[in-house]
């Protein structure tokens, strides 16, 4: 069976090592940014930013929480982008790894639609007209290596392996963490290859952290 991630945000310290490792492995240029009153930068995904640690502050029961969400493509089991595109030259799912891969043929697709169907608001169109997002480091994975972000994560917040192993790890960790965070939950665990564990309701982290009620999904 193919691969998956388990991302335990309760272990994340927002060091952004994953974000930079992604840039480094995928040879993506830096964006020109300014500080707009946040530690989160760049402010959002772009055609050259596939991995982004989203950072929000939240006061829960009078206590401060720094909520960190190392966001990326979920490599869905039934990817809406792939289903919408219906063009395996542009978007295909790697049979071995399960990675949802965008090719240069995405140039031909209507970008707004592809972005629009993504429940997690992930893909972005570059100046060259190509759609871009996390590749699961498919080139690494096919050679038996972990994705760059997972390899660099110092706190075991990011985990990678066989999908069922990740599902088991996620459930096991959820059970443990529930005693500390009663609202802890796995996000869309049955639908995605990138399973997030959050301590609180997903909307507290990011509007599109989980698929439900994020925004109307496009249907064909």
């Amino acid at each position, binding site marked *: 069976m193919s691969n998956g991630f388990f991302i335990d945000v309760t272990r994340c310290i927002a060091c952004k090592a994953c974000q930079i490792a992604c840039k480094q492995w995928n040879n993506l240029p830096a964006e020109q940014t300014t500080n707009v009153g946040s530690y989160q930068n760049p402010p959002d995904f772009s055609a050259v930013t596939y991995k982004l640690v989203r950072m929000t502050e939240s006061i829960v029961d009078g206590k401060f929480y720094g909520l960190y969400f190392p966001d990326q493509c979920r490599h869905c089991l039934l990817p809406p982008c792939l289903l919408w595109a219906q063009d395996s030259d542009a978007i295909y799912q790697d049979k071995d790894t399960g990675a949802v891969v965008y090719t240069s043929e995405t140039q031909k697709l209507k970008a707004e639609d592809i972005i629009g169907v993504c429940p997690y608001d992930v893909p972005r169109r570059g100046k060259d007209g190509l759609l871009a997002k996390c590749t699961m480091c498919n080139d690494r994975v096919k050679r038996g290596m972990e994705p760059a972000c997972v390899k660099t994560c110092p706190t*075991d917040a990011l985990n990678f392996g066989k999908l069922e192993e990740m599902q088991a790890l996620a459930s096991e960790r959820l059970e443990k963490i529930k005693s500390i965070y009663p609202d802890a939950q796995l996000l869309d665990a049955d639908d995605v290859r990138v399973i997030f564990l959050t301590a609180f309701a997903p909307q507290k982290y990011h509007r599109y952290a989980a698929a439900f009620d994020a925004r109307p999904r496009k249907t064909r």
Partner: protein
Amino acid sequence: MTNHWIDLRNSDCILVMGANPAENHPISFRYVNQAKDNGAKLICVDPRITRTATSADIYAPLRSGTDIAFLGGMIKYILENRLFQEDYVGNYTNAPFIVGEEYGFEDGLFSGYDPDEKHYDKSRWAFETDDQGIPERDPTMQHKRCVLSLLRDHFARYDLKTVSMITGTSQESLMAVYETFTLTGAASKAGTVLYAMGWTQHTTGVQNIRAMSIIQLLLGNMGLAGGGINALRGENNVQGSTDHALLWGNWPGYLKVPRDSDHSLPAYNEKYASKNNDPLSVNWWQHYGKYSVSFLKSMFGAKATSENDFGYAWMPKCKDDRSYAWWQSFKSMYHDGIRGFFAWGMNPAVSCGNVSKIREALTKLDWMVHVNIFATETSDFWKGPNMKPEDIKTEVFSLPACTWVEKEGSITNSGRWMQWRYMGPRPRGQSRSDGHIMMELGSRLKALYAGGGVFPEPIRNLKWDYTTNGEFDPHKVAKEINGYFLEDVTVDGRTYRKGTLVPSFVLLQDDGSTSSGNWLYCASYTEAGNQAARQGQEDAPNKIGNYPEFAWAWPLNRRIIYNRASVDLRGKPINPEKWVVRFEGEEKSGKYTGGQWVGDVIDGGGLPLHHPDGSLNRDGRYPFIMRAHGVGQIFGPGLNDGPLPEHYEPLESPIAKNYMSPQRRNPLMRYSALLDKPATADPRFPIICTTYRLTEHWMTVTQAVPWNREIQPQVFVELSHELAAEKMISNGERVVVESSRGQLECVALVTHRFQLMQIVGKTVHHIGIPWHFGWRRQTSGNDESVNVLVAFAIDPSAEIPEYKAFMVNVHKK
């Protein structure tokens, strides 16, 4: 670190104070998380809710510069509730020692204070001793002048109410921290502390750490797995460079730089070798002369002979009463005392306090050599803000250094692990390794002095043979640091051949028959090979993550120092679950007749202090082998500013009075009035400010790396929603922060991470600014270094400047 990174996982309670490991040492959180998985508590005490604080079980805010008040309250809590480990404190610390009658403390001053010289006569704090010079003890620790009693008297003033008033930490938060951390006083528990510049960069820097050391000794946490006092180094080789005499007052291995009055080598050795007549005290510094002579043999090789004091006269001496610390050097430069300057891997034009004055000092130089991987604000100071290049005479030479991946050599990490690195790609362009540049510099100087010059001997006689085929050879340096037998040497019947590497510093000699560039590193590169390059994955039998075959740790591959304090008097582990060492003794009628220590490399050798029948073992050893008396120093008569920590206000503070004593500031604190204009309780500067680093950058270097700039592009100030509302500042807008020294324009980041503080009944704002940024790369307008605002006041023991607490104001641009 007394312990090491992996060992954090063994802890039951991790107190982070004066540090921010989640951001500045992210890898540490691998082990912090593992400890938490096993049920450990994480406590974070910091003025700001950092990324470490957001992972913590308990967060307690405190005002910058009030750590001693905070920790003093914990000491009082431990003593009042008798939470200390009685056996440990009685046997392994100086708590039972009797202090002489001349010791006293009144109105914030210890006895022996000379107000004119701003100096203490430390002899007034001496212990009462017997005719052998061994301190008198009261094993019951009841005597009114025993250390434990004096400690109790001293911290009696540190009640919750006063501490809370000073620190701004609520009484509830103080109690939460005290109750949780002191649970580690149980024999089966260990607590550790992680600190960094948040403790050191204060005018009470050394005493902050002393205060915590006292707590760790009281709770019996020193020497244990998951315990200790752990300094997190801000650069991967700060530990190594400090070991190798980065600081002005040191020779390698923490030997002393001689003073003018140390006329001869015998006088020098006599002065610094530690003396003690207690046969149970290992008193390691008694071997001082072996290490200093071996060091001189490394410096001058065959030119160093017993007839010429091994070249002692060729080593530079410091004036008796002068400091040559960083701040003094820049003061001298400013006043035209220093003509030339090597800025080597440093960027003082960003990273130094009161930085405008530092840059001005650079204009007074004749020349500066700048060695770095990039141009910096220091190499380019002459075209910086408020500079007129046409008026500046300083000639700047830039030498391009290669990066760490382009060279071979060792680093020593915070956990004292010396690790060997191979060269990746070759250096680019004309860049060269630091070793190569240094080697070349030395060779050219030798050539210049070949024909004569003023006092040419030190340069001419310098042993300078660290090349292979004309290239700098790090292996030759590493071997020299380890040291060689220079003659056949026979010790305990075994002969070590001339020219072989010394396997352990216990074999170093004071007769010139051995060399060692740094005795602490003797055993790191032996006939068995380069120990630092080892990659063994096997853990030791105690399975606490010491991994003794991976890399090499000083001293002698010991992974947890003071490990002898982790066993009871009979050599049995205090905590058998996570034992560090244990004695496997051969026993005959209740007495140890022999045996061996297993686990970590034991501190000091010998046998346990007691026989199995409880009688004193004359071949036993006290655990704290580097201290003359062999025990942990709760009372520390060696520091310049007092044998016990005491709360003093920072140079600049929001309150005009010290609520602990009439002495407002550290009486021995120093600052240059010419360079600095302090503002205490000054209505123009009512806001407390501190500085820090971000996970997204490393020092000032990564400013040049686009990916790092992308994630943190520019300098900003973090301030509370309340302060923002008061000043009508919105998130993300440009603001000006002002101190009595200068102005900084930056972006406002309005956040809940800073909260209002109640200091002595008055509401005070606390803000903070990261210090990585300079003026060379502008993002929006006039970005600058925060250090234009920072004061330059100095701790009297380590002479570290107070960068962490100063007073400012902030307004819209």
